[in-house]
């Protein structure tokens, strides 16, 4: 079957379970796709073809015996190289870990494997997930399948590229300031950043193996895929307490019916006081028009009007990020990291200011930051409640996938030069701070054919609502489309 590699996880799971295809056939199809295209893209950086085929054969044999391992029985997946994979090299893109082979799977990996998934290999990322491009000294650079001269995004850049190029059926990424969402947007795929503490972080690098975990907020684990169904299945498999990450409470996922377009009540915000590419803006204008025509209620808003101050959000984000990421570093190391970050931003940048203030922070300062954060979350939730929004739609970044460049280079957004980090995370980081669930879904394309995605934002624990709204919106935008030639 020539198109096996185009199919999604749920689809393949069904077809393997019914015997329509074998797991081995499916694995071979993805391996062939990787062999054909990965050289150019460099998304998959560790490949275990042999191991995958053995596992696939076992999957087929098990099925023949009437055994079913789980909802992903025999389905091939790849995983961001930030996640520990037992017996398979896990580097985090970080040279000192180039030969690190964990003994144990990260929780999310174990759960996908436990559901029957076949792990093909690991996908590329920047050093310790610290950039929205995916380059590192071990494996080099990943390119965007839509245009090799452009980045796939980061830090889950290899993940998104692998899904777009159809190297596997499902991916596992992580998102701090935008690391699932930016790549999903740049590569035209779906990516879910779940509610904070929905999915255990156990086995994710960073934290470096054996180090004290000080990153207690904002970081999340989530799936990337070619369909909402796949995202939903993956989330159900990886969510929930694991007896290791004590911050994860047992909150059910639930499921919501897809609303009729006419029943939708949506807020759209494109106004973040940050430049936005004309094509992106046009995409939202178009969608708003389509929704209104279908009878939906669409409200164009500015977050600041609802008590969610963006400058305060950026500054608080900077404070918490620096405080938590820096708690494991010496003050000198912290200052160096902040300088590097700051060097590429304007002086009055609130995020940089927050970071600088948080160097060698006291617990008191940090707790005050967390409380400011909670006030902002409360404001956002209040807005949802009072206005009755089912979801908030926003851009993911200022423009489509940027060309490869040195980290920190100002980014051209139409005629405007925008600071590197602003162009990358100004739209995503406020929702990171809020800890709310965000699905990135394909919205449209730029005039030069690059994907443009949108953030579908809900209140905390509202993944079911977010996915339901996204299904309704997909009827207008269409779903995943493969890059030309893949």
């Amino acid at each position, binding site marked *: 079957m020539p198109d096996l590699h185009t199919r999604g996880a749920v689809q393949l799971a069904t077809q393997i379970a019914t015997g329509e295809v074998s797991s081995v056939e499916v694995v071979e199809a993805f391996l062939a796709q990787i062999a054909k295209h990965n050289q150019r893209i460099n998304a998959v950086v560790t490949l275990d073809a042999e191991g995958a085929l053995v596992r696939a054969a076992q999957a087929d044999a098990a099925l023949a015996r009437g055994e079913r391992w789980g909802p992903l029985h025999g389905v091939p997946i790849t995983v961001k190289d930030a996640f520990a994979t037992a017996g398979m090299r896990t580097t985090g893109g970080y040279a000192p870990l180039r030969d690190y082979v964990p003994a144990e799977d990260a929780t999310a990996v174990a759960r996908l494997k436990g559901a029957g998934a076949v792990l093909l290999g690991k996908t590329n990322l920047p050093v310790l997930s610290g950039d929205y491009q995916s380059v590192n000294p071990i494996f080099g650079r990943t390119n965007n399948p839509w245009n090799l001269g452009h980045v796939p995004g980061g830090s889950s850049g290899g993940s998104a590229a692998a899904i777009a190029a159809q190297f596997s059926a499902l991916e596992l990424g992580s998102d701090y300031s935008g690391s699932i969402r930016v790549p999903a947007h740049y590569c035209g795929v779906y990516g879910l950043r779940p509610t904070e*503490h929905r999915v255990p972080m156990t086995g994710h690098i960073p934290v470096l193996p054996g180090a*004290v*975990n*000080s990153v*207690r907020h904002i970081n999340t684990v989530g799936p990337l895929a070619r369909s909402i169904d796949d995202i939903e299945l993956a989330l159900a498999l990886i969510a929930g*307490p694991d*007896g*290791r990450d*004590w911050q994860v*409470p*047992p*909150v*059910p996922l639930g499921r919501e019916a897809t609303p009729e377009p006419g029943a939708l009540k949506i807020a759209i915000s494109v106004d973040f006081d940050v430049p936005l590419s004309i094509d992106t803006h046009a995409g939202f204008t178009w969608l708003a028009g389509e929704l209104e025509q279908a009878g939906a209620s669409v409200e164009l808003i500015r977050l600041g009007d609802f008590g969610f101050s963006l400058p305060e959000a950026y500054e608080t984000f900077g404070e918490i990020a620096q*405080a*938590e990421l820096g*708690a*494991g570093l010496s003050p000198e190391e912290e200052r160096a990291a902040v300088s590097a970050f700051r060097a590429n931003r304007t002086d009055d940048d609130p995020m940089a200011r927050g970071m600088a203030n948080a160097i*060698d*922070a*006291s*617990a*008191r*300062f*940090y*707790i*005050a930051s*967390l*409380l400011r954060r*909670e006030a902002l*979350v*409360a404001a956002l*939730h*209040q807005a949802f*409640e009072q206005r009755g929004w089912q979801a908030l739609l926003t851009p993911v970044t200022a423009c489509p996938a940027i060309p490869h460049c040195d980290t920190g280079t100002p980014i051209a957004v139409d005629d405007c030069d925008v600071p590197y980090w602003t162009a990358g995370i100004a739209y995503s980081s406020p929702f990171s701070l809020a*800890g709310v669930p965000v699905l990135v879904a394909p919205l449209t394309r730029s005039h030069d054919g690059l994907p443009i995605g949108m953030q579908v934002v809900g209140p*905390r*624990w509202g993944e079911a609502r977010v996915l339901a709204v996204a299904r309704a919106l997909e009827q207008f935008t269409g779903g995943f489309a493969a890059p030309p030639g893949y």
Partner: protein
Amino acid sequence: MLLARIATHNPALNAVVTLDAEGARRAARAADAARANGASTGPLHGVPLTVKDAFCTAGLRTTCAYPPLRDYLPLHDAAVVSRLKAAGAILLGKTNVPWLLDDAQTDNPIFGRTNNPWDLQRTPGGSSGGGAAAVAAGLSLADIGSDYGGSVRIPAHFCGVYGLRPTEGRVSLTGHLPPLERQPPAIRHISTPGPLARSVADLGLLLRVIAGPDRRAPSIAPAPVGTHGPMAAPQVRLAYAPTFAGLAPSAATCAAIERLASDLAAAGCQVDAHDPAHDGFDAAAAREAISVISQAEWDAAGWPELDPTASVAESTSLRAYAAALAERDRLITAFQRMFDRYAAFICPVTPTSAFAHRPKGTPIPCDGRLLTYRQATASYTIPLSLLGVPVVTAPVGWDDDGLPIGVQIVGPRWGDAHLLAVAALVEQVTGGFRPPPDRER
């Protein structure tokens, strides 16, 4: 009827310090009328209860036993109070607490001292002392207290009632003082509201009413309490340790726990002596970690402003705070290992039964030994507070002076419903709540 009991018995106990008789009667009449019309206001329809004077009650004096607040009338109900009212409960009034909840006895400059209904010369415990005394003496059907280092558990034990300290993060602290309303709500760990009642079933009912998210506390997750069917004794495997956290309790306490263990075994449970220290749980490390976390959070909440006598410690560094939270993670993992094998763990609440009133901080005799105040009050409760695990306190016997002895029944985090089912089994075996003898005025 309760108002009559309050009138008769409260003067000697001084448990209820603010009474809203008029409001309660009004609400009761409304509840009766609704019921007559076939309507129900909720799972606590018409149930009269009290609330610790730490929870803001709109329009009803809330002091936290802190003199500057002696006439304070909050504008808004605390989150738990809103939920109780929404469930149809009738708020009778507020129960006594020590100054800013800062003691395991209940005495303060505004309302004075609360006495234990079992022996007026003894403390009912604290900080939810008024609540436990009110419930034990039948002045209220239930109370909502709060527990940091033992403030629901110790009074429940001293007064012979049931108390629940839910899993940390289930119940919102919005509107709980301290911190005062003008101060940052910086207490992010350890503290939780919890019910006091005369049966395990009531604990469960109240938990389901008060648990759940509130908009001002986004860290409270919508984790359902769930239900758990009754457990049959042979299904239940229990661990117990009369000596816990390195401290042996009084002989009477030890005997009560051993008797409980053998009664449970006779009922068909599998009961093993097991100290979680064997699984790597280090109670001293727990005390150390909670001290760092408390210091940091109370400092952030502005405690030095409230208590000028507090020693001015250096501001806790984030590194130290982060390290303490990481240590907490390790300790939770170690403690919870036993729940692979056991449904629950039973240990004492304090080394002795209720002690005679005395100035805060003075030593307390335990058989032939003299324990420090801290040892005698916090030894068994504080290490568990750190972990955020759910704990039921249940009365299981009496000492030779006729004072109740309770135990902590501990379960894994988020396992509240299952723990309550285990506690219900213990209740069955022990015969449940017994009221103190009524004293003539």
